[in-house]
């Protein structure tokens, strides 16, 4: 688990995981925290599953299915914002 609390700190943690897991070079000029991870081919459907597990175990949350196709759940900044909303109880996983 991480102590990251601000959106920036959450984004840093998510970016580090994505770069490491999906072999994204620091020198990649097209990759940023605003990149569309799926459309630009950085993360595929299987990778998304691993990302969800990472988010759940790292931030002690349950990622609701409802965010999967949300426009926010496409970039690192958007994902960080969603993580914050889930942690603040503004988004909940439907049981």
């Amino acid at each position: 688990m991480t102590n990251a609390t601000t959106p920036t700190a959450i984004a840093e943690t998510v970016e580090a995981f994505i770069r490491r897991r999906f072999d994204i070079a620091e020198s990649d000029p097209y990759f940023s925290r605003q990149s569309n991870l799926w459309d630009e081919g950085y993360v595929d459907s299987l990778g998304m599953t691993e990302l969800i597990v990472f988010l759940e175990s790292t931030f002690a949350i349950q990622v609701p299915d409802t965010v999967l196709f949300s426009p926010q759940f496409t970039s690192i900044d958007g994902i960080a914002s969603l993580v914050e909303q889930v942690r603040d109880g503004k988004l909940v996983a439907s049981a």
Partner: protein
Amino acid sequence: MTGRESSRQVTDFVWRDSAVTAPFGSADIAMTDPAINALNGQFALHLQSKTRHLLVRDPLGVNKLFFAIGPGGQVDVSNYLIDHVRAGRSLHEVWSVPSGHALRFDTASRDYRLTRYTGLAFNEAAAPADDPYQCAAAIRSSLEATIRQIRPLAEGRSLYVTMSGGLDSTTVSVLTREIIGEFTGVTFTMADSNGQVIESEDLRYVRRLAKDINVRLKVVSRTAKQLLELLDPVLVYGQDWRDFNVHCGLVNAAIGFDLARDLGTQSRPLLLTGDCANELTADYTPVSYRGQTYYTLPDLPAGRLRRFLVTGLDTGDREIGIYAHFGCDVLEPYALCAPAFTQVPATLLEVPQAKQKLMERAVAGLVPAYILARPKVRAQSGSHDNSGGTLAAVADAGVGSQELSARFCELFQTDARALRGLIKAGMYRFSTQYPGN
């Protein structure tokens, strides 16, 4: 398909309190989520009353359900994505109802509410030390109850059970023989380039089992070339381009084609299969063939992987959709027993030979010892006597993941980018707000 029309060609099987329900009418549009949660089965419902619509999908998403709302409020609903494409829509305009969800909307008021009416509880705890396999009894009991539920549906119909020589299909075969009675076993095997059936190890086990439980056996075979001729209907009606589901779908298409040919215009045959057991027990591994890796999976321990494999049943229609295209109804007993399987403690899925150890206890005294003793066989990759399987047939023809997705795009008149947006984390694209808002 035209507006305000349902084009659902896949049979719904719905039980309430273990009894088959009567067909639903427009009055049932008022069903609450608890009332829907009392239903079990394989279904994708569309109920309509004037401008109000209720769409419901079964807990595992075995039956698929896609809809589109036109600019004038016309609603098209189908089990098949392709119906929407043929009606002139792009995939961007088509939405799925997620498994275990109910969707209510009104095209006049544009009210739109997607709710999860049920959820599977995945037991992520450790197995109890004193009796780690106590969950096995619930699995046995659930499987038996499910076959008993199916029995009335089999009356007066041609009943088939797919047999692969493995543990999952054998369990269904033996229980069906005990509880329902006679059926015809049906199995698939590759043929050599001359069309001669390859007597694989799987086939030898299937023949032996069919003889031991005294059922007729129908052997369906295809050469590699013949199998690939089924690729387009598999992509279209299997609603997926991912290699594992396509390879499974090819076998099912061959069986479905032959059953349709044999039965002609007689009533739709009913097939029972061993599908979904592997998802429910996270019994999957990637397969290597000629230096390539197929059937890739998220890199997770089995106890965590199970949740995503089961959720992933939302996508892909390798059995129901393909068989329905050939006029066959399919029931998946394991899918109907999902709650018993999701209660298996995660730690039991992470030991070597996990499913075998679990199912040995669940089906003790039921499944012959020679089946229980078999090493795990992945039908798609062939037996360990190297007789090959669908994976070899497809891969050797140069049809890999890229070719499958490219052909899918052609058939669905879409592109790779749209495809990436169609399935995420094993779920078809859905919307939480009125489409177009």
